């Protein structure tokens, strides 16, 4: 059993410190897996963030992953890790506007392509903590949908909520974030 699965068990058992230790471990696991995957890809290939997060989960939880009650904690931590990776990338991209492109190829997470404009990504990132303070689940849904690229049914499964509920959280979060960012 890996350190991550042990931590997930501890969180399920109500250990408050375990939750703090989970994020750096999941972050490292995603980086390690990204590195492994990039080593076998042709140069220029990009990584699928969603596939990466799912694959890390399958590896961590092994064949028992269906029974794992810690699943929503894992996906929460993985989504937060992806958010940080993407924000680093968006910041870097924004700082390069008009300048020379700097080779970042050694950073394997930089091979994850950004599909949305980097100023939008940074704005959503900055408003997200305020949303989390108001509505924690809606913010979780945004991380999985926006920063990991998961579909609504996938999010429902990951967070152990109904698809309808996941969809409503997303609709609310989008309207809320639009207001927070554009002052609407």
């Amino acid at each position: 059993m890996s350190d991550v699965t042990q931590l997930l068990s501890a969180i399920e058992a109500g250990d408050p410190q375990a939750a703090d230790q989970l994020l750096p471990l999941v972050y490292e696991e995603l980086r390690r897996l990204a590195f492994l995957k990039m080593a076998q890809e042709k140069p220029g290939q990009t990584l699928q963030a969603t596939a990466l997060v799912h694959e890390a989960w399958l590896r961590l939880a092994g064949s028992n992953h269906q029974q794992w009650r810690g699943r929503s904690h894992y996906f929460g931590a993985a989504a937060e890790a992806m958010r940080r990776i993407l924000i680093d990338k968006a910041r870097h991209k924004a700082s390069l506007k008009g300048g020379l492109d700097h080779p970042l190829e050694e950073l394997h997470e930089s091979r994850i392509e950004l599909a949305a404009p980097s100023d939008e990504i940074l704005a959503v990132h900055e408003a997200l903590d305020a949303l989390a303070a108001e509505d924690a689940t809606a913010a979780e849904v945004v991380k999985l949908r926006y920063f990991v690229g998961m579909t609504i049914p996938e999010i429902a499964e990951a967070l152990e909520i109904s698809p309808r509920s996941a969809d409503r959280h997303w609709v609310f979060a989008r309207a809320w974030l639009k207001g927070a960012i554009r002052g609407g």
Partner: protein
Amino acid sequence: MNESDSFKNRPEKEIFFEALDKNSPEERAAFLDGACGKKPALRARVEALLVNHFHQDAFMKKPAVEGERPTIKISPTSEAPGTMIGRYKLLELIGEGGFGSVWMAEQQEPVHRRVALKVIKPGMDTKQVLARFESERQALAMMDHPSIAGGDMRPPTAWRWISNGTCKTNRSPPVRRAISIAFRKWCVGTSWLLPPPAP
């Protein structure tokens, strides 16, 4: 995750959703009159949410990462006793490691015999893992003893079944691992040479 206790702005969100379900702007306005009553600030927040929702633009339309891809389903691995993998029928799960699992299995053709089958986990069939399996297989193929597991298969790799042998995987380099497995098998296989334990 508990869905009901995660947000403070419950009325705002609930009124927003109920308003979304109304069929016309008039119906919606009438509903808001009743639901928000004498709370203009609440009404303003809900109306702002509705405006933002109905005003379609590119904002957050696309995820920050590309979302179009084949979905990886979160579901139990398909292997179960009785599953056929090629010409092998899985009988019993013996052990699991980081990259795969080991099953007691029955080869169906060309001969019926019991084998230990190593099955690589979904997503783990990378070049590195396949190379490791291959070098492990080659190392074992060089040794010939009835009690040394040997195999001639490509993944899923099948190994001659040795009853009462333990078959654990670890992360040591393949050759060392193969030797350690072989040595353990050999010890088990030749244990009848030793004097019986003292009563």
